[in-house]
């Protein structure tokens, strides 16, 4: 599988932006500049970015609580996203949503979700709209492995399947649901197996490999666009950091973490680009630096942005 050069370069940039974004968020949290809670996806950038970039214009995505990489892959404005994390008036949600609710319905970003599994049925509905209005677009629905134990997962897959809705249930299996390891929260190893119960294809991709992720999503989207109904895609990946900001991670070992860090999806793509002569090491370094600078700019923009006025508190409750 090849990815067009321009797309690949953009993908590399966005993965680096996602990494830098979350490093900056960690930094901001430690200094009390960012409040609330946040779930980092460091290590999962290929899974989040390449999947969204495999979509076509007009396609939609519904993100999970661990949605920063996916949002950046979907092509959000970094400044507005950082402003939202800082709770500013010019953030994506006017400072009312924060990390767990970054959304921009207009552009097809149906929103990150604080309710684990909450996005499944929303995606089914969004896919219904696509089918109904014959838009030819698909919905990419992000969720974690743990989320597939919610009843909503099962009801959503069933309905999407019988109605042949154009939705890709994209499960980022990072082996843990908060502190609960996969083998303790389900009795199967591959979430893709769950697809069989609903009569839809269940496919696995290497979530740390942009090529595999990209190709798998493109094929799944094709299946959807041909009117053949939904697909369940399981992306095998790993989060490097704790579940959220306060997590001693007693449930896993440093060795395991190191093993997965060696499969760094960004490093993998970097090496590929250099080996294939797509870019020189110096050129790649320059891209890394640009990504970091983009995030610094976004943070500075956000930091200097106004707080929402208290009078906006009661706005937008009803349309």
């Amino acid at each position, binding site marked *: 599988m090849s990815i067009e050069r321009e797309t690949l370069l953009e993908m590399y940039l966005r993965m680096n932006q996602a990494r830098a974004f979350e490093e900056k968020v960690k930094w901001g949290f430690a200094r009390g500049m960012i409040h*609330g809670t946040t779930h980092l996806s460091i290590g999962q950038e290929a899974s989040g970015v390449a999947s969204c970039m495999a979509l076509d214009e007009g396609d939609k995505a519904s993100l999970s609580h661990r949605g920063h990489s996916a949002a950046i892959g979907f092509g959000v404005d970094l400044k507005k996203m950082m402003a939202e994390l800082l*709770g500013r008036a010019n953030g994506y949600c006017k400072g009312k*949503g924060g990390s767990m609710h970054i959304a921009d319905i207009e552009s097809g970003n149906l929103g990150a979700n604080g309710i684990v599994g909450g996005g499944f049925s929303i995606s089914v509905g969004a896919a219904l709209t696509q089918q109904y209005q014959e838009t030819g677009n698909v919905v990419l629905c992000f969720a974690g492995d743990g989320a597939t134990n*919610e009843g909503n997962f099962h009801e959503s897959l069933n309905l999407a399947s019988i109605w042949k809705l154009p939705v890709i249930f994209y499960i980022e299996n990072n082996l843990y649901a908060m502190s609960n390891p996969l083998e303790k929260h*389900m009795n199967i190893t591959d979430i893709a197996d769950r697809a069989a119960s609903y009569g839809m294809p269940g496919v696995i991709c290497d979530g740390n490999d942009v090529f595999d992720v990209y190709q798998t999503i493109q094929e799944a989207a094709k299946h959807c666009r041909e009117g053949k109904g939904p697909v369940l895609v399981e992306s095998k990946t790993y989060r490097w950091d704790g579940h959220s900001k306060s997590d001693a991670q007693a*449930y896993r070992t440093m060795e395991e973490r190191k093993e997965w860090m060696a499969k760094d999806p960004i490093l993998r793509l970097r090496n590929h680009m250099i080996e294939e002569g797509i870019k020189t090491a110096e050129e790649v370094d320059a891209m890394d630096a640009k990504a970091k600078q983009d995030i610094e700019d976004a943070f500075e923009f956000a930091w200097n942005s106004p707080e*929402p006025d*208290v009078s906006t508190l009661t706005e937008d*409750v009803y349309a």
Partner: protein
Amino acid sequence: MKTMTYAEAIREAMSEEMRRDENVMFMGEDIGLYGGAFGISVGMLDEFGEKRVKDTPISEAVIAGAAAGAAATGLRPIMEIMFSDFFTISMDALVNQAAKMRYMFGGKAQVPMVCRTPGGSGTGAAAQHSQSLEAWFCHVPGIKVVTPSTPADAYGLLKASIRDNNPIVFIEQKLLYRTKGEVPVDQDDFIIELGVADVKRQGTDVTIVTYGRMVQRALEAAEIAAEKGISVEVVDPRTLQPLDKDTIIKSVEKTGKLIVVVEAAQTGSYAGEIIASVTESDAFDFLDAPVQRLCGKDVPIPYNPTLEAAVVPQVDEIVAAIEKAVNRG
């Protein structure tokens, strides 16, 4: 007496009851090794093992349903829903199953389960992790609803809840978890009966009825009012269902003025129920000022900290309400 946090008091109450009765067990998401999202159950897995401290998958519907089924057949489960907001997913099991079994089956079942869950705003976790949903639960006959405001109350009420033979929603306030207080753990079987209010401060001019984290704010406001020569009585029902109307009514008969303070969004909140209990009683004749309710604004909880704080009643607003009540009288 022992000084402990609200969180420790909850852990202590659960642990003691589990030691006392082997049919008491505990289940929920990440409550074992992780010790719960708020660290409530740290160490309990070590003491009680996986048979009695059970990590569940992320499956709120079956957690509540399994608790109901286990309770109806001989266990006394304590279940934890990580944030009270996620109770939406457990609602069928709680509302249509657990709450109804005894009545529907002609009194031939009992469902002794305790649903522990943190409620309330103030952590910057935004609209899906910050709600105060107690009024929902109070509206369902068959469920008891408890919401303690101090470590001692948390301890005594949780022990009573675990021993009670009904489904109980036990709402903890996440911002209270780290507050400290004296807890009578050394008093043999310190139990606080459900349905008994506590007068947290005696006064003669105005009655404030409030619960959960707003109790602290009401007490602070009462302190400020005292400096201005106004004597405020603060009544904490502690249990919302059943509600100790007598204590509230008696207080209003004494002061002639009532303010109800709750964090939940105003419309349909439990404040209305508390007020109705007073105005339909003989205490109505004692009222010499309009009853006031200070509630959360009718908006979802926003992420920005300034906006978030602006949603729920503040101390100065309570003071203003006290002054308004007195000036009217």
